[in-house]
């Protein structure tokens, strides 16, 4: 594996992790924009724009884009999160230039009014689809409660009303500002010809204009969050779904790695404390904890699904499990979690498509490269005491937001 980096005069970063052994090349544009960069009147615009990027440019129709990707045998897609919008394609190495040519053209979409109207229907369908399936909006509601007036409180999809009200002009303005050359990263992994990638990018993206970007970080203070519970009632659901958030380390601290290891000890989907206590015993369908980090905040997310009448008791039990953990973890469980994570890092490292996302997001957020070896060494260096320190510092049992969705009613007893 070899890491390469170049920057075009207009500020576009080009990075690659080149692997001689790979059979494919993956490449993608990582746009530093997401729900957190929106305001009320354009809520859902980042994600809607991601769809519109596939609807064509001044010279390409939506059909042209779909045809070209399929002709090159690309596995292409995109996703939008709170902080990022990512467009990617995995192709055979000989299609590297074709894929870049198409992806870079797409970054300058036409945003036609009639496409906007048609695609709005697809977005509304997507909102309805998620509303019909677990956790029935509990994740969005919980994030809103937890982050309150912080930008991370925003929903990626937006709401039916915000999408219906959104105008194409507002999306055009948003695109112009957020898709500036210095707000994008072009990342590639696998069997990449880096010299050719840079040459092509100069031709295809060299004319893009930079634009001054605001500092995206907003201080998130723990005092913002308090212990709150909300209930979304879905009478016909078979199970109750709970999402609980409590503060954790942000991504700009080294503690994020220890936080992730801790989450595996506490709540991995098998072999963890939550698993043995709640899932293996058949009390819960699902009980997991993971750590998610953002530019300026971090969060431990606990998810539970279980028979409705047991929900409050099981949430109490989860808090007890976290308290017990704060009293001390065993060396064996920390080592078991570490071995699991080490293996995940090695296996993910073999897939260019998986490496692309780690590589691109790390650079987009922190402007630095971490190799598979860096990740393995960091994991090896974390001690049991580091996890105890995280537990003491972040108090998983203290302030939190919890949202339930399922048959339970709002006036049920709260914990």
């Amino acid at each position: 594996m070899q890491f390469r980096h170049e920057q075009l005069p207009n500020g576009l970063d080009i990075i690659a992790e080149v692997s001689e052994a790979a059979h494919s090349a993956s490449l993608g544009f990582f746009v530093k924009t997401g729900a957190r960069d929106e305001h009320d009147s354009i809520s859902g615009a980042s994600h809607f724009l991601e769809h519109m990027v596939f609807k064509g440019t001044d010279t390409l129709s939506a059909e042209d884009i779909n045809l070209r990707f399929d002709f090159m045998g690309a596995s292409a897609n995109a996703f939008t999160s709170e902080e990022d919008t990512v467009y990617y394609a995995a192709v055979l190495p000989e299609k590297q230039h074709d894929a870049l040519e198409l992806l870079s053209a797409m970054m300058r979409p036409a945003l036609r009014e009639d496409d906007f109207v048609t695609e709005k229907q697809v977005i509304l369908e997507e909102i309805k689809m998620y509303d019909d399936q677990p956790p029935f909006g509990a994740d969005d509601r919980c994030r809103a409660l937890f982050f309150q007036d912080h930008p991370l409180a925003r929903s990626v999809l937006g709401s039916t009303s915000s999408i219906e009200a959104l105008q194409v002009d507002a999306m055009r303005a948003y695109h112009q500002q957020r898709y500036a050359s210095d707000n994008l990263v072009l990342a590639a992994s696998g069997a990449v010809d880096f010299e050719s990638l840079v040459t092509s990018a100069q031709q295809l993206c060299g004319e893009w204009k930079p634009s001054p970007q605001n500092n995206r970080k907003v201080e998130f203070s723990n005092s913002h969050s308090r212990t709150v519970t909300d209930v979304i009632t879905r009478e016909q659901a078979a199970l109750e779904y709970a999402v609980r958030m409590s503060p954790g380390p942000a991504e700009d601290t080294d503690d994020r790695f220890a936080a992730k290891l801790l989450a595996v000890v506490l709540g991995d989907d098998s072999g963890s404390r939550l698993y043995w206590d709640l899932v293996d015993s058949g009390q819960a369908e699902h009980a997991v904890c993971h750590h998610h980090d953002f530019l300026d905040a971090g969060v431990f997310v606990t998810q539970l699904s279980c028979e409705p009448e047991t929900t409050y008791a099981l949430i109490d039990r989860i808090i007890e499990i976290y308290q017990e953990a704060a009293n001390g973890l065993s060396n064996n469980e920390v080592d078991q979690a570490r071995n699991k994570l080490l293996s995940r890092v090695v296996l993910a490292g073999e897939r260019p498509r998986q490496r692309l996302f780690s590589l691109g997001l790390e650079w987009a957020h922190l402007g630095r490269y971490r190799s598979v070896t860096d990740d393995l060494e960091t994991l090896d260096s974390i001690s049991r005491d580091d996890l105890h320190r995280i537990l003491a510092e972040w108090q998983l049992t203290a302030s939190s937001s919890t949202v339930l969705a399922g048959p339970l009613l709002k006036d049920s007893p709260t914990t």
Partner: protein
Amino acid sequence: MKQTLQTATLDNGIILLGEFLPGVESVSVSFHVAAGSLCDALSTRETDRSCCGLATLAGELMLRGAGDRDSKQLIAALDNAGVQWSQSVSMSHGSFAGAMVSRQLPDSLKIYADILRRPLLDQSQFDPARQVVLQNLAGTEDDPTHRTMLALRKAHYPSPWGLPSEGTSADVTKLSHTDVKNFVDTFIQPQDMIVSVAGRLDWPEFVKQIEALFSDWQGQPTEPISAGERGEKICHVPYDSQQTHIALAWDVPPYRDPDSLQATAALAVLGGGSSSRLFTEVREKRGLCYSVSAGYQTQRDLAVAMAYSGTTADRAQETLDVMLHEIKALPGTITNDELDRVKARAKSGLVMQQESTAARAGAMARQWFHLGRIRTLAEDLERLDNLTVESIENWLAKNPLTEITTVSLGRDPLEVPDAVSP
């Protein structure tokens, strides 16, 4: 691309498949025992009471301790060896798989031998294991897409192929510890078990170790399964949701039939990729849905084509009408460009599979199950190259689509035309 494929058969019927993949540190191994959910039907016949979900419950209990390790020790041993393990039940197989750094393979094979040959099937673990299966079944109740596909399977496949692999709550509640023990004794057998391994691999060492762990395991043949009745051709499941889910199925040749290539290529033109007809007509031009696709599901002797979409209730009828129209319009209209795109996508898929040890191990096992051999990548690519629009059209002309099973799930039933005439 030079490929190193290996096969071996043990005297007791265990099939070993291997591929050395250069440039990787990992290895993936999977064990596929002929103890899938179809065997539930044989247990039903034996016990005279419906046993849907028994294979799934057996798989769950087998992981709760084996050899000299109890449940927690077993999972700890796999986790500490860095084995990314999984267990699943399909119609034909109960499968146990693991991906790991290659030096852990010898130790993990010993653990898998314990799981398959010496599961504790501890009485005290039975109630929690059944509770886990019941919890998972309750969870699937809340997934409208999954429910739709289960209803489609029930309506289209002959029994017992149409029964849900994960079981039904009504049956699982009544299963006993003895049922599971009998199931494991009867169906967890070496005959036809496929052990597939791919990645950084020392094949002779691997064969030697599998022989040492499994060659003294003897079993007896199990009974064949016969096909029963099919369900209703048109079926609506009332469900209070914003979206209506539509699923269609029709018969196509199974994978081992040489014509399956023509059939799957036609299906890919219809609903594979974002330039496919369904995606273009239903989503791109009309904005009727977020997801629409068509796919292929094959068993050894029968296979079905399936198409799916989920859309708002008041636009569901139009969605169904467009889907049916596109399915019927396919014969006689496939273009060279469409076929070129199908080939390009399939070729990329085959080459990229070589980058995942787990995907390769799984794919080899599936090919062996259906064909009794593994095709090389070169052979698969050549078959694709030889595919022509003419061969697909000839097949479509000789095999006109006469009957489509239609399932909907949502607030209101849809109008389905009586007959499908191509």
